[in-house]
Every structure is written in C-alpha cells, then in structure tokens.
C-alpha cells in the first residue's frame, strides 16, 4: 500500500514539475537623466527573476537598496527621499507573456508581456511590454526596456531639482535565466 502511495506521489510530482528558469543576479538599469546635467542613473545586479516556461508566467523581485549610483550622495538621496527604501525595500513585477508556448521559444524572439509593477507602495498595470527571449540549451536570456513616470508611483520631484531629474524614467533589464 505504501509503495503505491509513493508511486502516485512520484508520478504526480513528475506531472506537475514545472520547468522554471531563474536568475538571482539579473540586471536592471534605470535612467532619469536630463541632457547636459549630471546623469541620474543606477544599476542593480541583484534581481531575482523567474520564468515558468510551461505557461509564460514571469516574476521579478528587486531590492531597492541594491541600486548603485556613481555618486554616493545621489544614492543616499534616492533611498531616503525618492524611493524611501526603508519603508518600501522591494519592487516586484508579476506578469504573463501573451500567446506563449514552449515550442515558440525555439523560433520566436519577441513576445509581449502584461503585468503589474509594484514600487514605492503603488501598483501599476503595464500592458504589451516587449520582451526578447533567446533560448540556448538550458539558458534563456530575457531582455527589454520600458518607460514609467515617477508620478505613477507617487514620487514627487522637488521643485529645486526639477530641471535636473526627468519625470520619465527609462528602465532596461537583462536576465540570464538558468533552468532548474
């Protein structure tokens, strides 16, 4: 009897075992620079991202304190006054790639992604974001870029720096997702 239970459990694990591709060291860059003043940009190399290659579900988690600026003071101001990373230490994205099927990974490179982005305690729906997927053996490289407005996430740029920080933020990402 016990053996049968084990067998059933084993079989069902196999059936429900989903193929997940993930990274813990994904890269996200953002830039909110205004031409001809000091650039406002940062890079984060500690992003966790997971793609379920059975159904195209995609999730990413970003630690705000992982954003590194060239200028240490800018980094401090970003954390304290804009992103308020003590109160909101994470940004998350949860979404699904549209019209996704596993087999398409071998041919198609560009997909469209719908999902929600949560940052600074606010959640915004983002639709039809273009995401490039490139599969090579057990590795899927996912990359793309999109724009958000700081006002969408309830972040106010003080008047004194309004001509130094752009209201529109360009975000680029690159994840090398390994199968596991």
């Amino acid at each position, binding site marked *: 009897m016990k053996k049968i239970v084990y067998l059933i459990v084993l079989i069902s694990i196999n059936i429900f075992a989903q193929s997940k591709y993930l990274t813990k060291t994904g890269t996200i860059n953002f830039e909110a620079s205004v031409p001809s003043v000091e650039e406002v940009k940062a890079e984060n190399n500690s992003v*966790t991202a997971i793609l379920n290659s059975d159904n195209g579900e995609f999730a990413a988690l970003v630690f705000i304190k992982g954003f590194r600026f060239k200028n240490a003071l800018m*980094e401090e101001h970003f954390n304290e006054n804009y992103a308020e990373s*003590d109160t909101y230490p994470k940004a998350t994205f949860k979404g699904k790639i549209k019209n996704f099927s596993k087999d398409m990974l071998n041919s198609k490179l560009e997909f469209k992604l719908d999902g929600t982005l949560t940052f600074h305690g606010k959640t915004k729906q983002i639709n039809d974001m273009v995401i490039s997927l490139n599969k090579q053996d057990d590795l899927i490289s996912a990359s793309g870029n999109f724009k958000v407005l700081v006002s969408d996430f309830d972040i106010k740029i003080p008047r004194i720096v309004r001509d130094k920080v752009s209201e529109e933020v360009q975000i680029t990402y690159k994840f090398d997702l390994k199968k596991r």
Partner: protein
Amino acid sequence: MKNKILIIIALLVIALLAYNYLYQDHRDIASEEAKFSISPEQIVNAFKTNTRDSEKKFLNQTIELTGSVTESNNKDLTLNHIVFCQFSENHETTLNANIKIKGRCIGYDDLLEQVKLDQCYIIN
C-alpha cells in the same frame, strides 16, 4: 589686504567642503565593523517570522555570517542553501568549505526564501 586673503581662504574652504559633500565616497563595507554576527538560519528565520521588523533591523547593515558554501559562482555564493552573497570582485571558494563572510544585507527574497547580501568579502 589681510581681510581679502581671509575671505579667499574662507571661500576655498567652503568650496572644498561643498565638493567633498557632493562627491563623497561610497561606503566601504570591507572596512566597516559588522553590526550583527549571526548564523544563516537565524537571519532567515527572523525574516520569515517578522519581515517588517527584520527589515528595519538588518537592511543596509553590515552583517557577518558563517556557513558552508552550498553553491559557488564567480561573483556569488550561497551559504547553507539560504543566504545568497554577491561579491564585487571574483572570489575563490570551494564547495562545502566553511567560511566567514561580511556583507551588506539588501533584503529577504520571498520568491526563493533566501536572504541577499551584496558587496561581500571573505574574512576566512
């Protein structure tokens, strides 16, 4: 004449202070004293049981951890399967080695149930 020299010196000092403030150095985790010395299990459990308070306590702090290397890549390693440590430079460690590291806690990853550290250094 003397006054002018004093004013110029004062201006130079102010300019220097302003420059140092605007272009101050980044934190150097390697030279910082660790604020917490804790085991991988303890810190993960702390985050699991009370995420909010643990975030207030550990985030952005320099933390010292001892554990065994369960996964190792060029610029990162995992301690006891549950603490993920990123390095700024390539590191050399062998799997299953018992090591002590120091790094900055950036958060608790609830997707993977791991604590993440960056700017890590191996102490021994």
